[in-house]
């Protein structure tokens, strides 16, 4: 008799009073007989799961949806086995339904970690806190983890959890130490219907079959991460007919304030440097005089402080800020590591560029010829811009994860750059106004620059508003639940924040177009106030825009438990 089908076999587990290697007949998880496949070299795709090992077998969960009765014993057993606090569940049971009474069909999905072959958690982890062990189990290294939570964004099954009392991520390890001792994982042992089973199968088998075996109703596609879990669906089930029962209950995500600040300010910095560099580049065409050097000389260090400060501020969202330095370790696969490297590079380049500007111009701007130090300065400027592009791109790329469909598009990158293009010019105008305020003259040609810049900003802003509105409305009708739910959050739950955002967009636009008229006699105080207000409007707009970006994203997830999801979502809404 196949021991996977026999819960009574599970029962024997407990009789093993020592943890030595149990006799063969008491091995509880089924060892699939090594097939001839085993001896063939495994064709390993170039994926993260095979980075370090050369195993050819994989231990996996086999979930029998056809047997599960939805009793939730596995969830409680998992918590007991691992001594977990209630807010940290490594195993969850969800429900899916279809049909019309009395031909209703309802099934349950119990899921721990799927120990994917192409594990997104592992790829994204900036500190290499994940490793694949000899069984193919994706293990999390608690010591290494810095609590950035990026894996929780990457996993399409929302498996890794930020354990609040430890401030690190933790997750299911298939009770790997129990398996090594010949014992069943706690969930397997607890199941009264034998619906959770463990199998040890040739890796090639999973590579060959994950696209069919890993499919569950209303679940993320196995193509994202190549899950090792096999799901046996009930006979004649049409998975595409089913919907998870908690679909209607979406809870907004965390706003991640340090990340809002960090992304907005680095993008502002990037936009600012773009403006500086352009002016610097074409200064001879503008009028080789004047304030420019002064402006550039003090604006760029200010931007540096902003960028540096915001990068440091972002470490505050880590569970373990003191180990932030580790985060560049996994630059090979993690966009988070790359973001940090890119933005740091940008910051350093910007620093050099600013220092050069400050040293060569800030001290004696009138007399110095623009040609002096030209090549070095322009190179530094160009390098700043290029590293800025790389930094912002990496920064945007880290949000573009398949687990979060609303972010997973080039639109996120566009959004990040456009934010820079809105804020950069405005901060430049503001600097101009400040500089003019403290000098005697008010040359009209500078106003031309201001106006051109303002138009540039205005167009970027208009583009962003139209683009966002278009997509939110398009998503309303989307078949992809995560997108329609995102639209729903934008249109209903965050109606006020979104309206406010649009009002601010309008105000920014109006002030950009109407506050900077051409003319000989510009009131300097007026200009200062007008540009200050515009900057304030624009900053608030961009911050709200980014806030909505964070809170309205709907992560992919496995089906949930109706009453828990409904209770959580409605209570959250009440708050």
């Amino acid at each position: 008799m196949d021991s996977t089908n026999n819960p009574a076999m599970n029962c024997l587990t407990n009789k093993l009073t020592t943890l030595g290697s149990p006799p063969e007949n008491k091995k509880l998880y089924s060892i699939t007989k090594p097939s001839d496949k085993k001896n063939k070299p495994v064709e390993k795709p170039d994926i993260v799961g095979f980075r370090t090992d050369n195993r050819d077998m994989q231990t996996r969960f086999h979930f029998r949806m056809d047997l599960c009765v939805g009793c939730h014993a596995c969830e409680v057993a998992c918590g007991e086995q691992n001594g977990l606090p209630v807010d940290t569940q490594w195993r969850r049971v969800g429900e899916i339904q279809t049909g019309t009474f009395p031909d209703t069909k309802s099934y349950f999905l119990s899921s721990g970690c799927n120990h994917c072959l192409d594990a997104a958690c592992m790829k994204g982890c900036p500190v290499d806190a994940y490793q694949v062990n000899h069984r193919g189990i994706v293990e999390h290294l608690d010591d290494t983890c810095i609590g950035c939570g990026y894996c929780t964004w990457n996993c399409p099954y929302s498996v890794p959890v930020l354990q609040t009392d430890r401030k690190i991520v933790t997750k299911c390890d298939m009770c790997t130490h129990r398996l090594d001792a010949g014992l069943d994982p706690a969930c397997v042992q607890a199941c009264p219907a034998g619906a959770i089973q463990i199998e040890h199968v040739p890796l090639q088998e999973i590579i060959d079959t994950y696209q069919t075996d890993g499919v569950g109703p209303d679940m993320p596609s196995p193509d994202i991460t190549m899950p090792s879990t096999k799901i046996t669906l009930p006979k004649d089930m049409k998975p595409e007919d089913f919907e998870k029962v908690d679909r209607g209950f979406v809870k907004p995500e965390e706003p991640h304030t340090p990340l809002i600040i960090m992304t907005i300010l680095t993008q502002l910095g990037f936009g600012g440097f773009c403006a500086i560099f352009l002016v610097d580049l074409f200064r001879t065409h503008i009028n080789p005089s004047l304030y420019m050097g002064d402006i550039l000389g003090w604006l760029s260090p200010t931007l540096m402080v902003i960028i540096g400060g915001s990068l440091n501020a972002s470490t505050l969202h880590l569970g373990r800020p003191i180990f932030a330095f580790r985060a560049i370790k996994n630059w090979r696969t993690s966009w988070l590591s790359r973001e940090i490297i890119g933005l740091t590079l940008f910051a350093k380049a910007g620093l050099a560029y600013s220092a050069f500007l400050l040293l060569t111009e800030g001290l004696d701007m009138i007399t110095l010829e623009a040609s002096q130090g030209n090549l070095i300065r322009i190179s530094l400027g160009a390098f700043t811009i290029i590293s800025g592009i790389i930094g912002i791109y990496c920064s945007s790329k880290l949000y573009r994860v398949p687990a979060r469909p609303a972010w997973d598009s080039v639109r996120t990158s566009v959004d990040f750059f456009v934010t820079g293009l809105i804020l950069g010019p405005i901060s430049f105008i503001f600097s101009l106004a400040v500089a003019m305020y403290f000098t005697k003259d008010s040359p009209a040609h500078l106003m031309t620059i201001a106006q051109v810049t303002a138009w540039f900003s205005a167009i970027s802003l208009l583009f962003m508003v139209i683009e966002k509105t278009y997509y939110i409305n398009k998503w309303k009708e989307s078949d992809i639940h995560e997108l329609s739910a995102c639209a729903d959050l934008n249109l209903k739950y965050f109606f006020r924040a979104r309206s406010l955002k649009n009002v601010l967009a309008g105000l920014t636009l109006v002030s950009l177009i109407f506050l900077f008229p051409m003319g000989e006699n510009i009131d300097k105080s007026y200009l200062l106030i007008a540009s200050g207000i515009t900057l304030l409007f624009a900053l608030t707009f961009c911050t709200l825009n980014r806030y909505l970006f964070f809170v309205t994203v709907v992560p992919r997830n496995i089906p949930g438990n109706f009453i828990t999801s409904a209770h959580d979502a409605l209570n959250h809404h009440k708050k």
Partner: protein
Amino acid sequence: MIAKLKTMLGLDIKEKEYAYDIDPEIGYLSEKKIPDKWVKTTCGYCSVGCGMIAGVKDNKIISVRGDYDHPVNQGNLCPKGLSEHEPLTSPNRAITPLIKDENGNHKPISWDGAYEHMTRKVAELQYKYGNDCFSVLSTGQLLTEEFYTLGKLVQLGFGTNNYDGNTTLCMSSAVVGYKQSFGSDGPPGSYKGLEEADCIFLIGANIADNHPILWNHVYKNKNLNLIVCDPRKTKTAMLAKTYLPIKPRSDIDLLNGLIHLVIRHNYVDKAYVENHTEGFDQLAQHAEKYTPSFVSEKTGLPVELIMETFESIVNSKNTFFAWTMGVNHSTQGSDTVSLINTLALITGNIGRTGAAPMSITGQCNAMGSREFSFSSSLPAYRKFENEQDRLDLANFWNIDPNIMPTKRGYNYPQIIDAILEGKLKALWVIATNPIVSFPDQNRLKEAFSKLDLLVVQDAFHPTPTGEIADLILPAATWGEKQGSYTNSERRVSVANKAIDPPGLAKSDFEIFQDLSLWLGKKEMLYPGWTSTDDAFEEMRKISKGRLCDYSGITKEKKANGGVQWPCNDKYPDGCDSLYSDGIFQTESGKAKLLFTESEPLPESTSNSFRLILNTGRTVEHWHTRTKTGNVELLNKLSPEAWVEVNPRTAKHNGIRQQDKVSLISPRGRIDDILVRITETIHPDHVFMPFHFAEKCINKLTFPAFDPKSGEPNYKQCAVRIERYDPPS
């Protein structure tokens, strides 16, 4: 301060707290869950009666696991069982006797003070109004020894027979149904039957939610043919091969229809009917009109489904009929049970493994109370009315036969009625929570307000009932006391004491013993008793030769997986099936083929109340949540009450998925309920779980009772649903 800083910076990730180690019994395990010792015991939640081991450390149970050697669960436990240790350390434990002062506040009092107050007050009232003015509402949660002790204390010590248990809210109809058909209570089958039956016919039983560990047996059935009859498409119905979505109460018509088909198509087990039953001719006559088309009309089931069910039953060698509250919670519960018995009898499905009409009980020891509680019958299935039975017991106990009660007193709902009428003045409530669980709460609260004395004995405080009590007696609970439980399949298993009760709390057994001292009747009632073992010894002796024969049950048998009564010289290892010899406990020795017809529902729907409210359970919670309400994870999995509504009904009433709703019956309303719009429920019905005190379903339910058993008709009352708009 430094620790806080360390956590903030990320230097401390609580590695020690989340370390693992090796437990000799369990293996690799979270270090904080590794106890000093594991104590074998039996679960104190439901009647499945799972064996478990409780991990004890520093006089606390820190973990619970299933007992692999126990035949009932073979190592499995449901989520409630797995977390059974958690309620024990809840801040809601009753740890000291409390008395209500003039201002209505509860104040601690000594045990002596509490006993003195209770016995004096009861004596005063009994002197004034007669012994019968004192009434007792007990439970299915105590140990069998405690039931036996309590029964003697109430009937012979306090001298009142107005004594019943909350088991009347649960399975008293099964008791009456069995008594009517077989001459005695006693579920004939066993869980092994679930593994071996060719056909399992569940009537009004949602075992996936309510008795999930039974699935451990169902799942082993190799040719599982599961038929589920339920107005709601429950988790269990989803797993069935044949699902019968019947109209509420029309189970009677369906059963009559099946009997009709069995007789018409000559599938009657003639030899069995001839030799072991009586009343077949009347039955045949009665069943004549229940043609499939007639039954189809009554039940709302297509004829094909009725035929399919009939064929499954008659083509199976062994059919296992099982039911729970869908049958029992009805004004016709007792007769429905008898009708199921009749169907089983005429098809010869009794007396073999896998062939039985089986009542799956509710509470962990409802069976123990049936056997020995001395409330609905004399101990060991003896009859109040039978003079010989009374004499036997009186002789055995060495007491005056004249003080033996000659009839059963008021049952639970009659006790409430009698309080309302002013006939009963004092009430002692033990381990139950009527102010959540009894139908028509307004009426119940009015009754309780008329009492001169309300004593509540419970392991938890405050509970809704405890809050209004004059006196609270803090009791030990599961894990803190020693004795036995009997499960649904008559299996007597040990419940071991693993730790001491908290504070001043005492085991119910001790409290009963102490009270007998205050009554001056300790020696009369409990001569020489020191522990529950003495009670068990006496139970063994008085049950010898009875159907529920304990005489062969030893400590060892109880401790190692338990044993199914009758356990005696003939069946030293217990007995899998009752009535395998075809001899019943009736005077003639033959079973009675009883029948009945369905009556209209006690409350019919109207224009204002168009929907039928169905009530039930969810797997995460137990009864009124005095226990499971203290388990964080269970509360997370099932945090609040909800009402299930069909999408068409929701649309018709302008209710959307994210709305909250109000449920209104002629007796009351519940507001702000979470709604679940789902196709698992018929458009004419709504369903709501009964566990939640805050959203107490019994504000709505209709106070109609089975006239024979006293069991409430919880399952159907008329309601309407409205969208709830919170007052702004």
